[in-house]
């Protein structure tokens, strides 16, 4: 999912665990996953199913995934995938409960790498979370400087190269140095011009973070000269789940709830409340528009959609709702995106005159 895999692979290999990384997600992954999934299930299930099948083809015998009970379907993925994949196959299937991520991760790594001490495991987890947060930072910088660069593609390339460098860093200091260097290089391409329109990217976690699922929409927006602001990041999420929740000081939800009132007054599972909360936050902070992105049929985001419609109408905030499924072709999405970008730019030029 997004840039989650590279640092995790590094961590596992550092602990002498043999890792088979699924091949990058392609059309084939999706088709394979869709073939082995129920028709009405949401896109992340189909993609992860494809990932599992491709890794099994590549010789993996142990699969690890996340789960966690709630109102959303995501927590049930593991149980169904385990049943389907375990048929006629001798595999081990592990699930990490998102409510106790640190505990489960420590146990799992302790099992796979019995020779490594708890200290080494703890250090490796910390380093991985640190790397993921550095990756968050360069991705945020990519969007900021990319939208202000003469040739946005260059900034995107720098970011991608930098991400590979960070994944292979060995110490905490090295991670910070690399991160700062990458951001400095990006900054050098900045053009002094008027601030580009800012667009908030809200919606479901997986499709926001996995570039294949959202068809590199973020990069596409940057190329259109829009600054993209995301509120979910892999590293931030890992940090909140591994550290803050273990310490019991994770109360992000309350803030979102305060923002989302009166449009949505309850946590509806998944990222539904977050989508509404962040959109309300953006509405009062001069954002030019909001893109709501989610997999087709996503239960929490459908509830959020009811709230977003009214919220954006009341605040006169342009809203583009995109739901993606396995049939999504790039052209359909990009046409809508270009039209939306044109609308925003036009609106900005009209109001600035």
């Amino acid at each position: 999912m997004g840039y989650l895999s590279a640092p995790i692979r590094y961590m596992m290999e550092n602990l002498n665990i043999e890792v088979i990384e699924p091949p990058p997600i392609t059309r084939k992954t999706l088709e394979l996953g869709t073939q082995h999934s129920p028709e009405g299930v949401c896109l992340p299930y189909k993609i992860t199913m494809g990932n599992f099948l491709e890794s099994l083809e590549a010789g993996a015998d142990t699969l690890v995934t996340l789960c966690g009970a709630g109102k959303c379907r995501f927590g049930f993925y593991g149980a169904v995938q385990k049943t389907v994949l375990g048929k006629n196959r001798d595999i081990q299937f592990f699930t990490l409960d998102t409510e106790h991520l640190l505990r489960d991760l420590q146990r799992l790594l302790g099992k796979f790498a019995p020779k490594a001490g708890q200290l080494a495991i703890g250090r490796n987890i910390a380093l991985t979370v640190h790397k993921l947060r550095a990756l968050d930072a360069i991705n945020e910088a990519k969007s900021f400087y990319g939208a202000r660069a003469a040739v946005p593609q260059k900034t995107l390339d720098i970011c991608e190269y930098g991400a590979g460098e960070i994944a292979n860093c060995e110490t905490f200091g090295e991670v910070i140095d690399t991160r700062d260097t990458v951001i400095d290089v990006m900054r050098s391409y900045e053009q002094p011009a008027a601030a580009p329109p800012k667009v908030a990217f809200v919606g479901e976690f997986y499709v926001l973070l996995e570039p294949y699922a959202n068809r590199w929409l973020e990069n596409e927006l940057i190329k259109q000269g829009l600054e993209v602001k995301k509120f979910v990041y892999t590293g931030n999420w890992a940090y909140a789940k591994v550290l803050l929740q273990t310490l019991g000081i994770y109360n992000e939800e309350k803030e979102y709830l305060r923002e989302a009132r009166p449009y949505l007054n309850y946590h509806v599972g998944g990222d539904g409340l977050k989508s509404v909360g962040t959109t309300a936050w953006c509405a009062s902070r001069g954002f030019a528009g909001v893109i709501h992105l989610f997999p087709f049929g996503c239960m929490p985001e459908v509830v959020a959609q009811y709230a977003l419609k009214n919220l954006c109408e009341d605040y006169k905030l342009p809203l583009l709702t995109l739901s993606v499924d396995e049939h999504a072709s790039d052209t359909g999405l990009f046409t809508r995106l270009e039209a939306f970008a044109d609308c925003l730019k036009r609106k900005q030029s009209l109001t600035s005159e």
Partner: protein
Amino acid sequence: MPITVGIPRALLYHDFGELWHSFFSHLAVPVIVSEETNKRLLDRGTTLAVDESCLPLKLYLGHAESLLGRCDRLFVPRIVQHHQGFHFCAKFAGLPDIVRNTFHLPESKLISPVIQTGARSEILKAAAAAARSAGKTPWSGWRSYRSAYTAWAQARDREVPSGNAFTPRIAVIGHSYLLKDRFLCGDIFAVLKANSVTPVTDDEVPRRRLYQEAGHFAPDIYWQMAAKLAGSARYFAHHPAIAGLILVSSFGCGLDSLSLEYIEQQILGSCGKPYIVLNLDEHTGRTGIITRVEAFWDLVKWRRKLESNLPAYGLSQRPHPLYDGELEY
């Protein structure tokens, strides 16, 4: 000026409607319930709802709209969790918000008590809140809830009559808001009855038994409604009087998309009984459903005829381990 409360005849009304009715009648608050589902309500709901909503939610909005001009308050409870460890789907947790956003209603127009853990104290709090928004005292809310609940629970737990075990029976499994809606599922039952088959639903199974069966899938299934479905599927799949199973689902149902796959893999695939999954949507042509149910019944009949010509273990069980070839008919 007395307040009239409107209750949409959709979603959890089919499970708890009687409880809600008697709660308000103990409170001496007049209640109106929307009419039975019809094409007009469904069409209105489909127009009002966000496209990707599931069929039952679209229906709910249609029902809610039909009540708007006729009552002072809408009763839209927010049910998040009723039993420890079991959740409801996101749409139940967000139902009052969905209704308010769709019709641009102020908070005061809704009576929406929150049930989020199923603890006794919390239910009493919810009853008090509901009474207060209906213009009554919290004390009368508690009293009404107590008497309503006692009567309702007694009626619910009474012995269920079991039908004649010698006539073939088909189990119909699905969420009660689908099965009990005559507009959506009436045809399924009518076709079965026309062929002199007795349909059975999980209403005829003691609740305790259902959840016992569901306990086999304990940590996996964490939705209450999916657990109930899996429990009844497991019960009926192993019940000797049941000749086949019809599973009813609706388009866009997030729970069913995964839990039916799970039920198929875990129970139905290996039980040897014929089963069919019927997916309902807002297209109201009746023929599609009727044809499929008839075809399914034909299949069950053939299977029963075949089985009577086969050795004692029948087709319903796996072939003998010594007999490892394909079964030839």
